[in-house]
């Protein structure tokens, strides 16, 4: 039983006999708190530290100090995997980054990608969220299209079937996310509609698409879409896949937007109605601007997941970043240095995704000040 409950007050030892309190600051205290707080913790520390000490120096040697960087096959072969052969990446980087795009014209995908990335970087700051942003993006996408497709201003024509690597990944992501936002908004409003038919259709679409893997949707895009179109009309594979990704992403976007709509207090609807606004006016002027502002960080997360999802287009034989890496690994001579290739492409994805997720956290904190539902209620 509890000793304190027995009645007699606990007698404190006299002050002289008490040990001084443990140091709460300084390196020793830090070590004790963070590495040796218990026997279990101490054992874990020792195990992890031993493994790291064993693995890290070797890893650094393999990855950096002893690695071959020049595209020199003989040097790589002599190395016999005792260190990384980044020569594979130096030799194949243009194939990995730009896929089957004609070699002499590859400055075009480079410029197009840099343009889009720069536009993204500008858009990232809330300072740029003004009216000129939409026309600016339309111009950027038009420039991207002209650079990639050619046929204008003296650029030779390049079939979209030859697009590949990073530009393909970037454009599929951008088109997928931006086109899915309006569809997602419509679906989200439809799901909350009072008309039973509209509500049922939206709900069935959203749940059905969310219930099947993206690959199925890509199969639909590459095998079924050609059957649905009237005879004589053809869509190239890039457009079909982009539509597939958009339709898939729209279902998820709808749920994101619905989250924002649900976070808005009822009072907003009632206030809009009492001002005499019609349903459409209320949605456009009152509800949607607030609901969408609430879910801006989720849009960034959608961008991130679409960026990763585009890698699946490899399955329907398009050569995005993942696919063009596989393409370059088809070279029997360099094939054995696949690990370096995967590390390189993995690093590109990792850095981009980490940047996006950090940005989304930053945005959430920054917007949190004015876009939190609690703030709206007051």
């Amino acid at each position, binding site marked *: 039983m*509890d000793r304190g409950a027995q009645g007699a007050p606990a007698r404190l030892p006299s002050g002289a006999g008490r040990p001084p309190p443990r140091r709460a600051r300084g390196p020793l205290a830090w070590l004790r*708190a*963070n*590495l040796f*707080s218990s026997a279990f*913790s101490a054992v*874990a*520390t020792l195990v*992890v*530290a031993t493994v*790291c000490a064993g693995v890290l120096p070797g890893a650094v040697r393999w990855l950096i100090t002893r690695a071959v960087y020049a595209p020199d096959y003989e040097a790589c072969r002599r190395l016999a995997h005792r260190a990384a052969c980044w020569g594979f990446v130096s030799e194949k980087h243009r194939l990995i980054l730009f896929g089957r795009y004609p070699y002499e014209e590859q400055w075009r995908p480079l410029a197009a990608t840099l343009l889009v990335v720069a536009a993204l970087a500008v858009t990232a700051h809330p300072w740029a969220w003004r009216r000129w942003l939409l026309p600016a993006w339309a111009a950027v996408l038009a420039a991207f299209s002209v650079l990639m497709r050619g046929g204008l201003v003296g650029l030779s024509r390049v079939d979209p079937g030859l697009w590949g690597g990073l530009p393909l990944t970037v454009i599929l992501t951008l088109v997928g996310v931006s086109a899915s936002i309006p569809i997602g908004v419509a679906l989200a409003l439809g799901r909350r509609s009072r008309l039973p038919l509209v509500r049922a*259709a939206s709900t069935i679409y959203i749940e*059905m698409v969310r*219930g*099947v*893997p993206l*690959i*199925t949707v890509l*199969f*639909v895009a590459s*095998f*079924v879409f*050609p*059957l*649905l*179109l*009237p*005879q004589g009309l053809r869509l190239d594979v890039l457009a079909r896949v982009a539509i597939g990704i958009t339709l898939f992403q729209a279902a998820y976007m709808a749920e994101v937007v619905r989250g924002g709509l649900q976070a808005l207090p009822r009072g907003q609807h009632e206030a809009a109605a009492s001002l005499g606004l019609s349903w459409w006016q209320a949605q456009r002027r009152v509800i949607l601007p607030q609901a969408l502002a609430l879910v801006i960080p989720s849009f960034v997360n959608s961008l991130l997941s679409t960026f*990763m*999802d585009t*890698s*699946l287009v*490899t*399955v329907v034989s398009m050569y995005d970043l*993942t696919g063009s*890496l*596989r393409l370059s*690994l088809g070279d029997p001579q360099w094939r*054995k240095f*696949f*690990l370096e290739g*995967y590390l390189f*492409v*993995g690093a590109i*994805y*990792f850095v981009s*995704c*980490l940047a996006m*997720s950090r940005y989304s956290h930053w945005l959430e904190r920054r917007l949190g000040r004015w876009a939190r539902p609690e703030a709206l209620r007051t």
Partner: protein
Amino acid sequence: MALVLASAWLARNTRQNLEARQIRSGFGFLAEPAGFDIGEGVVPYTPSDSYLWAFAAGVANTLRVAVAGIALASVLGLVVGIGRLSRNVLVRGLCTAYVEVLRNIPLILQLFAWYTVTTELLPEAATPLELAPRVYLSKGGLQFPVPVWSRGWALALGAAPLGIGSAWALFRWARARRERTGHTPQVLWPAALVAVALPVAGWLAGGAPRALDLPEVTAFNVAGGLGVTPEFLALLVGLATFTGAYIAEIVRSGILAVPHGQTEAAAAVGLSRRQILRLVVLPQALRVILPPLTSQFLNLTKNSSLAVAIGYPDLVSIANTAINQNGQALECVLIIMTVYLALNLLTALAMGYYNRRVALVER
């Protein structure tokens, strides 16, 4: 109205296209022999079996990798999720690095990498790596010993539900008694004993068979025992490690969602750190964890469709082969969608039932 018109237009286009390409429509093809081979599976299948049976074999393969993956990912996620909240910096850092790296690289790239590692870096099948006595890992996959099926094992398997049932009954009795008298009988050990002893008794009654089907290294490969192919292995490891990272985040946020006051109150009552985690924090965290966990399980099942990229014969790979053979894309895609939607519905129903059981009981 617009919807109906649009569907009619699309249907007309489709009919014309199918006629122009001389592709049949309808599900009649399911009864015909498939003609292609399936590399592995739990369902006995030969190329002369029907398409329907081929799809069934594919579904079985999808379920096989999904169930194994879910089990592995849950364990991994729980361990890493708790590790991310560890007071030890090294453990915490390691778990954070794992989660960040795995979540920020596309799954398909990870699967390609795992598959290439299995088929390129592992030793040849004739000179396998011996992980544990008689457990061999090589380019041919993983091979391990299994007991030879006999009456003793059948009895043990039959007695296992009986043992688990009695253990459960014992717990029910202990709980009823605690609620009646306030005294908690110690039933953990007796229950564990019953649960283990009954199958063992069945095994003994069947003559205590000890014969094992041991894998043997031959001149060319590893023969005997039970094996899984490199495709299955790569897919399983890829799915489990990837989903494990997401589950770890769910576990972590679930634990953080339990107010700190609960931990302090539990400590004030005199519970040990382990007891606090087991009796106070985890049961409450479970309520927060469960809904997102369900969707992760479904995600893993859906992601198992990436098997098509590395050649594991799951439902989608088999549908892909069928489409390439007979061109009936519409029907095959419909079959895939139906199966996945059915799986989703079943999981949602099961989890809904379980969720109601652990949900907060309010007045």
